C-alpha cells in the first residue's frame, strides 16, 4: 500500500492530492499512542489540518519526520514499518512540509520594544548616565524570555508598569544632570576637606594610608570610606565621567614570617591572607544608609597593585552627585576588619593590651573617658601593631579625582538634556528627536509635539517636556520596521542593537542616510568595525547569557552555606567572564565551533585558577591558559558558568544537566513529563544510590523514551559539583562514576568521553541550534519551520569549513531573516 501511495505522491503535485495519503500513514502508525485515547508525550497527531496546515502543524510534522528518520518512532517493538518504509515515510513528510510552506505567508517580526538592557544602554549613550551606577530603569520589570532570549517581539509586552517606569526615568534624567555645563575640577580626596573612616586601614604619619583588610565579609560596614564635605557627606556636586588618579604600591606581600607569627595555630580566628597574590585594590561608590534609602554599594574598578616602587594608576568611572561616598578595600587582604583583629588577635599576641568594645562601654559609663578617646587610642594601637607586624598591605599616598571630564561627547550629552542656548526650541528638539528616533525625521514630524509645547512660556521647561515626551514616544521605545524589505536605517538599527545592544552611532547613521550601508562591501566593513569596537562586548555577553541560560544565576544562585566562596569573591561574575572570553576568542579567530566542546584551554584570572585548582597565575586580568593535563576540563562543558547554570544551586541533578545540554546546546529538549507519570521523590537517605534511583525510573517505559537521552549526558558531568568543582564522591561518600551510553549505543567512561562523542556525532545539531539562536537574537523573532530552507542552506555552506564561527555570524547578518521584516 505504501508503494502505491508513494507512487501517488510522486505523480500528484497538489496539496490536496498529497494530503489523504499521509493522514492514512499517521492513522495507521502513530495515532494509537498520539491520538484521542492516548497522548503519549503530551502529543496528538490526529488533528493535523492537512488541507491548510498551520505553522504549529508543520512544526509537529517536522518533529515527526526527525523521529522517523532517526528510527526512534514508531517504537521498534510496535512498529509495522520497515527501515526503508520509515525512510520513505519521512521523505514524503519532508516533501509535504516543503510544498505547504510555499503556500503560507512568510514570517515577519512583530513590533518590539527596546528591552531593558537596550533601554539602559541607549539612555547611557544619550545622557552618559551609567546604568550600573545609577539605574534609571530600576522600576522596569524584567523582560519576558522566549527560549531564553530577551528580545523576541512576540513575547515582549508593554504595560502601564513599563510606561510609568519610562516616565519616571525621564524625570530622573533631570535630577541627575545639572542645568549648567559642568566644569572640570581637581579634587584631592586625601586632603583635610574629606574624612576617611572605616576600620580596614591605618593612617601613617606621612598621611599615607595602609590598607590591610579585605572587608568582603563585613564590607557593608568596615570598608575604608572617603566622605566629602558636600550635603549629607556627598563628595561631588556634579554627576559625570571622572578620572581617578591613585598613587599606590604594595608591600610585604611575600613576608611569610610576619603572617605566620600573627596567624599562629593557637589563634582560632580565621583571618588568613592570600600570600603571593598580587594585591587587588577595589573601588566602590557607596550611598550611605539614611532614612528611606538603604545603603548601596557599586563596584567601580579593581586595580592590581604590584610590588615595588610607587606607581600612578588611572581609570575613569561615571559617578553620581549627591550623598555618595567612595569606598576602597584590599580585596584579597586580611579577611576581617581591624576591630575584629584588634580584639581577637592583638590581645592574644600581646595579652591585655586592647580593650574590647564592651570594656570600653563599661569605662565610659564609669566616666573614665569618651568614645572618641577610646577610638583614638585604639587607632594608635592598631597603627603601632601593624607597623610591627608586617602583614601584606597596599600603601596609598594619593587619590585624586578629576572631572566631570568635559569631552566632546559629554558636551553633546549635556545638550541632549538641555538644548543649545543659541538654538530655538524647534531646532533643539529636531536634533534630539533625530538622535533618539535613530533615523531621519519625516517632514513636519515634530509639529504635533511642538504645537503642544507652544503654550508653555518657560522655553527651558518646554524643551524638557519635549525631551521627556520623546523618551516615552513609541518611536523611541519601539524598533520601527515598516515594510517587508528593511530600509537602510532599519538595517542600521538591527545591526547596532544586535552587535552593540544599543543605538547606532553617527558613522552608521551617516552610511544609512546615503544608502551606502546597503552596499555589500560597505556593510561588511561596518560589521567588522562594529565587532572591533568595545561595545561588541555587549553582544558577546548578552548572546552567551541568553544562549546558555545564565539567567539561572540570578534565579537560583548556589546556596550560600554550601558554597561560601562563590559569594565571597564575586566569583559568579568571573565565571561568566570566562565563557564570554572563550566565545570572543572563537568568534574573533573564526574557529570551527567544535572548539566550544574541544578546547583544551580556557580564559581565567588568578581567582579562577585558584577556584579550579590550577597552578597559580598572577593578576586579576583574564588570559588564555592551557588546562593542565591532570584536569578533566574541556570546552564550555568544563566551565563553571555552564556547570552552575545547569545545576540548581543546592545539588546537581543528572536530569537537569542532561536537559540543559539538550535544550541549550542541541536545541532538542524533550517535553516535560506527562501528567499521568508520577515523578519519583528523590531519596538521599543512602539506601539507594543515585544511579540505582535513576535506573529504576528509566526502566519505566513511560519515562525511558526521553530519559535514555537525558540522563547519560547528565551523569557524565556528575564529577562536577553545583559550582563546577571536581569531586570523586558525593557528600555522603558514594563514589561517582561518569560512565554511560548514548541511545545510539556508543559508550563512554568520563565526561571527556561523552563530550568527544557529542562532538563527533552531534556537531550538526549543535551548529543548527547555534545558528538559529543567533538568527533569533539578531532579528527579534522566533525561527521556525518556515525558515528551514534558509537555515539548511546556510548550514550546508558552513559545514564545508567545519562551521567557522565568524562566518556563521556573517551568514546571519546577510540572511534574509535579518534583512527582511
Amino acid at each position: 500500500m505504501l508503494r502505491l501511495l508513494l507512487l501517488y505522491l510522486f505523480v500528484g503535485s497538489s496539496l490536496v492530492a498529497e494530503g489523504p495519503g499521509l493522514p492514512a500513514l499517521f492513522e495507521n502508525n502513530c495515532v494509537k499512542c498520539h491520538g484521542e485515547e492516548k497522548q503519549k508525550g503530551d502529543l496528538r497527531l490526529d488533528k493535523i489540518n492537512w488541507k491548510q496546515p498551520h505553522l504549529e502543524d508543520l512544526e509537529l510534522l517536522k518533529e515527526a519526520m526527525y523521529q522517523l528518520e532517526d528510527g526512534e518512532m514508531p517504537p521498534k517493538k510496535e512498529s509495522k514499518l520497515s527501515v526503508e518504509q520509515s525512510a520513505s515515510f519521512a521523505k514524503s513528510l519532508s516533501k509535504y512540509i516543503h510544498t505547504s510552506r510555499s503556500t503560507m505567508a512568510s514570517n515577519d517580526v512583530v513590533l518590539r520594544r527596546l528591552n531593558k538592557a537596550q533601554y539602559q544602554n541607549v539612555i547611557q549613550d544619550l545622557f552618559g548616565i551609567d546604568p550600573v551606577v545609577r539605574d534609571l530603569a530600576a522600576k522596569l520589570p524584567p523582560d519576558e524570555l522566549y527560549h531564553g532570549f530577551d528580545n523576541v517581539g512576540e513575547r515582549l509586552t508593554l504595560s502601564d508598569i513599563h510606561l510609568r517606569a519610562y516616565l519616571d526615568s525621564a524625570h530622573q534624567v533631570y535630577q541627575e544632570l545639572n542645568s549648567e555645563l559642568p566644569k572640570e575640577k581637581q579634587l584631592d580626596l586625601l586632603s583635610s576637606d574629606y574624612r576617611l573612616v572605616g576600620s580596614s586601614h591605618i593612617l601613617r604619619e606621612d598621611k599615607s594610608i595602609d590598607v590591610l583588610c579585605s572587608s568582603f565579609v563585613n564590607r557593608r560596614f568596615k570598608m575604608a570610606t572617603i566622605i566629602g564635605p558636600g550635603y549629607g557627606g556627598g563628595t561631588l556636586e556634579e554627576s559625570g565621567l571622572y578620572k581617578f588618579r591613585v598613587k599606590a604600591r604594595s608591600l610585604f606581600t611575600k613576608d611569610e614570617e610576619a603572617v605566620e607569627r600573627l596567624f599562629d595555630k593557637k589563634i582560632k580566628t580565621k583571618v588568613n591572607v592570600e600570600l603571593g597574590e598580587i594585591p587587588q585594590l577595589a573601588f566602590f561608590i557607596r550611598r550611605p544608609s539614611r532614612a528611606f534609602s538603604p545603603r548601596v554599594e557599586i563596584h567601580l574598578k579593581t586595580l592590581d597593585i604590584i610590588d615595588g616602587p610607587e606607581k600612578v594608576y588611572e581609570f575613569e568611572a561615571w559617578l553620581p552627585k549627591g550623598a555618595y561616598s567612595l569606598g576602597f578595600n584590599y580585596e584579597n587582604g586580611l579577611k576581617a576588619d581591624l576591630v575584629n583583629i584588634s580584639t581577637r588577635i592583638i590581645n592574644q599576641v600581646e595579652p591585655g593590651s586592647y580593650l574590647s568594645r564592651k570594656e570600653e562601654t563599661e569605662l565610659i559609663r564609669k566616666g573614665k573617658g569618651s568614645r572618641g578617646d577610646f577610638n583614638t587610642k585604639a587607632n594608635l594601637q592598631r597603627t603601632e601593631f601593624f607597623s610591627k607586624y608586617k602583614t601584606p598591605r597596599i600603601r596609598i599616598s594619593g587619590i585624586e579625582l578629576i572631572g566631570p571630564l568635559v569631552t566632546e561627547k559629554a558636551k553633546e550629552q549635556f545638550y541632549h538634556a538641555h538644548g543649545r542656548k543659541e538654538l530655538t526650541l524647534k531646532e533643539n528638539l529636531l536634533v534630539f528627536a533625530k538622535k533618539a528616533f535613530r533615523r531621519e525625521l519625516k517632514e513636519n514630524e515634530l509639529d504635533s509635539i511642538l504645537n503642544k509645547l507652544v503654550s508653555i512660556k518657560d522655553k527651558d521647561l518646554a524643551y524638557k517636556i519635549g525631551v521627556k515626551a520623546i523618551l516615552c514616544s513609541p518611536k523611541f521605545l519601539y524598533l520601527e520596521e515598516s515594510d517587508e524589505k528593511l530600509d537602510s536605517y532599519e538595517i542600521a538599527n538591527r545591526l547596532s542593537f544586535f552587535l552593540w545592544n544599543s543605538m547606532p552611532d553617527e558613522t552608521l547613521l551617516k552610511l544609512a542616510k546615503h544608502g551606502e550601508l546597503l552596499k555589500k562591501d560597505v556593510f561588511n566593513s561596518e560589521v567588522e568595525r562594529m565587532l572591533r569596537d568595545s561595545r561588541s562586548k555587549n553582544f558577546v555577553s548578552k548572546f552567551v547569557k541568553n544562549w546558555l541560560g545564565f539567567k539561572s544565576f540570578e534565579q537560583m544562585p548556589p546556596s550560600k552555606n554550601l558554597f561560601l566562596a562563590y559569594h565571597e569573591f564575586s566569583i559568579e561574575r568571573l565565571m561568566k567572564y570566562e565563557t564570554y572570553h572563550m566565545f570572543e576568542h572563537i568568534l574573533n579567530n573564526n574557529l570551527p565551533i567544535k572548539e566550544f566542546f574541544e578546547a583544551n584551554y580556557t580564559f581565567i584570572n588568578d581567582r579562577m585558577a585558584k577556584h579550579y585548582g590550577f597552578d597559580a597565575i598572577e593578576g586579576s586580568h583574564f588570559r588564555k591558559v592551557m588546562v593542565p593535563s591532570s584536569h578533566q576540563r574541556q570546552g564550555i562543558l568544563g566551565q563553571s558558568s555552564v556547570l552552575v547554570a545547569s545545576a540548581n544551586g543546592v545539588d546537581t541533578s543528572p536530569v537537569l544537566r542532561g536537559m540543559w545540554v539538550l535544550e541549550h546546546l542541541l536545541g532538542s529538549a524533550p517535553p516535560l513529563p506527562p501528567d499521568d507519570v508520577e515523578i519519583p521523590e528523590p531519596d538521599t537517605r543512602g539506601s539507594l544510590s543515585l544511579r540505582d534511583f535513576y535506573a529504576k525510573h528509566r526502566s519505566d517505559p513511560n519515562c525511558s523514551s526521553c530519559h535514555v537521552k537525558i540522563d547519560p549526558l547528565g551523569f557524565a558531568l556528575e564529577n562536577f559539583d553545583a559550582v563546577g568543582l571536581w569531586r570523586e564522591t558525593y557528600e555522603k561518600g558514594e563514589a561517582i562514576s561518569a560512565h554511560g551510553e548514548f541511545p545510539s549505543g556508543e559508550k563512554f567512561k568520563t565526561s571527556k568521553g561523552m563530550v568527544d562523542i557529542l562532538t563527533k556525532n552531534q556537531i550538526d545539531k549543535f551548529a543548527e541550534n547555534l545558528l538559529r539562536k543567533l538568527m533569533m537574537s539578531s532579528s527579534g523573532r522566533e525561527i521556525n519551520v518556515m525558515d528551514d530552507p534558509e537555515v539548511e542552506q546556510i548550514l550546508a555552506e558552513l559545514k564545508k569549513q567545519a562551521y567557522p564561527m565568524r562566518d556563521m555570524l556573517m551568514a546571519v547578518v546577510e540572511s534574509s531573516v535579518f534583512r527582511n521584516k
Partner: protein
Amino acid sequence: MSHSRKHVLKGIGASLALPMMETYLNKAEAASKTGSPKRFFAMTQDLGCIHDTWFPTEVGSNYKMPRVMSVLKEHKKECTVFSNIDHNLKGGHHAASGVLNGVKNTDAIRSPFGAESIDQTIAKKIGHETRFESLQFWGGGQKLSSSCSRSGSHLPSSGFVPSEMFHKLFITGTKAEIEVTKNNLSNGKSILDIIEDEAKSFEKGLSHRDKDKLDQYYSAIRSSEKSLQNQMYWVEKDKPKLDLKPYKKVMDGTMDKATIDDQLKIWIDLIHLALTTDSTRSITLTIPTNLSIWNQPHVEKDAHYYSHHGKEEDKKEAFRSIEKYIVTQYSRLLKKLKEDTQLDGSSLLDSTIAVYASGLSNGSTHSNSNLPLVVAGGNFQHGRHIDNGFKESLNSLYYSFNKYFDPSASSFNGATKEHSWQEVS
C-alpha cells in the same frame, strides 16, 4: 538580636492607639455606601511544604490540624484549609510564580485570557478608592511579586525594604518634595497627551499585527492617565498620621538589615497598618524564602537547601521549622485583623479575604501539584478542611473571590464556574 531591636519589634502595632484606627476604618466605611469595604490579602512563598505535617487526613469540620498547621489553631474556625487543589501547572520553580494567576510565566503570551493575578483583578475594581490601587510587599531575589499584570509582567515590589515601604505609606514629603512630585505629575499629564498623538502618527505605517501589538501601548497610556489622576488627588492629602517614635529603626533603615525572620514580622505589622489606615485594599506579600537562612530551630542553612530534603528526616524537620514560622506570622495577621472592629461591629477580618499559599507543593520533587492553601476571613463559611481531589481548579476558587468583589464577574483566567467550597454538604 540586640535588645534595642527586640524593643522596637514589640513596639510596632501596639503603638497605634485604637481610636485612631477606628477613625480610618469608619471613614472608609462611611465612604463606601455598601457597608464595610472589602479587602484582599495574599501571602505566598515558593518552596512548598512537608506534606505529612501539613495536610490533614480528616476532611470536614472535625479535622485535626497536623503539627505544622497547628500554629493556626486559634483560627481554625475562621479559616478553610485545602488539599489536592492546584493550577495544573508543571515546571517546578518556574511555575511557582503562577500561584495567584494560574499561568506559568513563559506561557503568559499564549494564554487566551492573559495572566492577571487575582489581587490585580480585584485592585482594578476597587483600587481607585484608596491612595494605592494595590501594594506588593517584599518580593524575591529579583524584587518581583507574585502579582502579575494581564500582559504577563510580574509587578516589581512596591517596597523591597521596610524603610522604603514605610516612607511610601506614612511619610508625607516636605513641601519641596511634594512640589517636585506635583510638577512631575503635571508634566506627566502633558507627556501622556503628547505621546498619544505620537502613537497615532506612529501607527499609520504599521501592519495589522504590529497595530495589535501597539494596543498595549494605548492601554498603557490609559491606565497611566488614571493612575496619574489618582496620584494628583492623593498628593495633596496628608498621609495617615502615626506616632513615628516606635518606627525609628524601621524608618532609618536599621530594620532593612534585620534577619529575614524579623523582616517578615515587620512586614506583617506594616501590612496590618496599611489595611487599618485604608491605604490600600489589595495586598500581596511575596516571601523570598529561597536563599535566606531563617533564624529558627534546626535551621543552619538556607531554605532552598532544606527543601531538597531527599526524605532525610533532619532536613525535613528544619524545613518544617521555617514553614511553621511563616504560618505563625500569617496567624498573627489574622489575629490583628480580628481585633480591629469596624463601625457595624464586625471585625476587619470579616471583610478581608486573607490567603496563605505556595506555588510549589513539594520542594524535593519540585511538583506543582497539590499546593498548600489556607483561606481566611471575608465572612465566608469556614472551619473545614476541604479535600478538593483535583476536581476544581484553584482559579475557580479565585473566581469566587472575584465574585465577592464584583458580583457581575463572569470568569477568572479561564475558570467560568465558581468553586463549590461554600456549598456545605
